[in-house]
């Protein structure tokens, strides 16, 4: 009896993973990314003649729970119609039994890659504020993202910012506290397209170290609220503003510290509160998170009105010079 080589087994496995799209309006173009429980493919919608992204459950033996979770993720996304959140076009089941959903195909770069080309801190902070917009919108719809990190933010070709991968999202509003988590202990063996999502114990601790809040890391799923996402946004802000060991200003550092406070009560209450503080920092105003001394206040005032102050100083200098050193010929 002949045994199949590892290479042959790998090829067979890859072949079996390719979703059968016959009977659908989609034509497969290629794999884009591999996630905790599904694979994202680029496909062409042959009816509308546009490119879409298909997230397909990679379990052929059809685990009902995972399929249910993918469906729920699609439903959560469908509720979140916002320019900063990738829209879902369709959800369904393929002929081979795998659940999938189609969403907008986002051409661009992940935030962590995109930031390499953005040197200015204010420009970086403006990108961060757009992430805040999308997350704040989701919160108004009672949805927590729970996995905010640079790899889950895409910047499109025209600068549009999209928050991706709502696979760990949690709906706060429903009575049964529906958990839309898409990763559990089963997923631990899968490669994660976004880095190291942690799965431990009974599959209740989900998120990314460094970005997930302490309460999320402790697995306190039932008590999570918007401040858990605020912690992640604080870590994201630190990454965005302080990448490449930039020295952050104290006010900005204080905003990060407040957002990432170990205790929930120490954090901003809402995402708009955090965004307002970042906007105030951008505008050269005092921020809620940092109490500055007189010298720092004067420095901030000078930075804000630098050119105006220099013009006034020039005027005064000219006046004093004329008064002291210039004698009119008369």
């Amino acid at each position, binding site marked *: 009896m002949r045994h199949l080589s590892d290479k042959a087994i790998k090829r067979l496995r890859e072949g079996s993973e390719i979703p059968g799209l016959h009977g659908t309006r989609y034509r497969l173009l290629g794999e884009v990314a591999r996630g905790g429980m599904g694979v994202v493919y680029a496909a062409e919608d042959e009816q509308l003649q546009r490119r879409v992204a298909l997230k397909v459950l990679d379990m052929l033996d059809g685990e009902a729970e995972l399929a249910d979770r993918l469906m729920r993720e699609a439903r959560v996304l469908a509720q979140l119609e916002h320019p900063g959140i990738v829209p879902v076009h369709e959800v369904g089941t393929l002929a081979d039994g795998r659940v999938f959903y189609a969403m907008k195909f986002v051409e661009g770069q992940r935030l962590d890659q995109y930031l390499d080309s953005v040197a200015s801190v204010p420009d970086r902070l403006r990108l961060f504020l757009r992430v805040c917009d999308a997350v704040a919108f989701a919160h108004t719809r009672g949805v927590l993202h729970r996995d905010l990190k640079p790899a889950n933010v895409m910047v499109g070709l025209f600068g549009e910012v999209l928050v991706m991968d709502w696979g760990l999202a949690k709906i706060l509003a429903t009575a049964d506290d529906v958990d839309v988590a898409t990763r559990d202990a089963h997923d631990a063996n899968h490669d994660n397209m976004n880095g190291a999502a942690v799965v431990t114990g009974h599959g209740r601790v989900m998120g990314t170290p460094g970005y997930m809040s302490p309460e999320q890391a402790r697995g306190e799923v039932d008590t999570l609220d918007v401040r858990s996402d605020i912690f992640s946004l604080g870590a994201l802000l630190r990454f965005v503003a302080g990448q490449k060991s930039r020295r952050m200003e104290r006010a900005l550092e204080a905003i990060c510290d407040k957002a990432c406070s170990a205790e929930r009560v120490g954090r901003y209450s809402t995402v708009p509160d955090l965004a307002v503080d970042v906007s105030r920092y951008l505008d050269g105003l005092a921020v809620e998170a940092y109490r500055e001394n007189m010298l720092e206040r004067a420095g901030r005032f000078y930075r804000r009105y630098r*050119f*105006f102050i220099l*013009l*006034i100083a*020039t*005027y005064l200098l*000219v*006046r004093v010079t*004329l*008064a002291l050193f*210039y004698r*009119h010929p*008369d």
Partner: protein
Amino acid sequence: MNKVLLGLLLGAVLGAFDGATAWFTPAVRAQLAGIIVGSTIKGVIAGVAAGVFARKVNSVPLGILFGLGVGFVLAFLVAYMQHGYYLEIILPGSIVGMIVGYATQRYGMAAATSR
């Protein structure tokens, strides 16, 4: 505060101050009140002009250049009428124009757009 009002107020304050500095020139100290009034009017005209310009053109460099031009022309006219003191009037007057030109571009609310 809209840009024209900002230009008017800032021009008036800077103009008055600019006129008051004539006190350092003993030869004209006797006409100080008249100089202050005249300089205030000059500042107001420059400020309003810069404010109107800022409502039409949104550019800090052009605003500064416009303020400089208006300040220079007005100061030149004043100096010409005084038959002298060109440097003492034109140099600070032009800088005052630059200041109101910059301020009206940078600060103050743009006019509301109407349908």
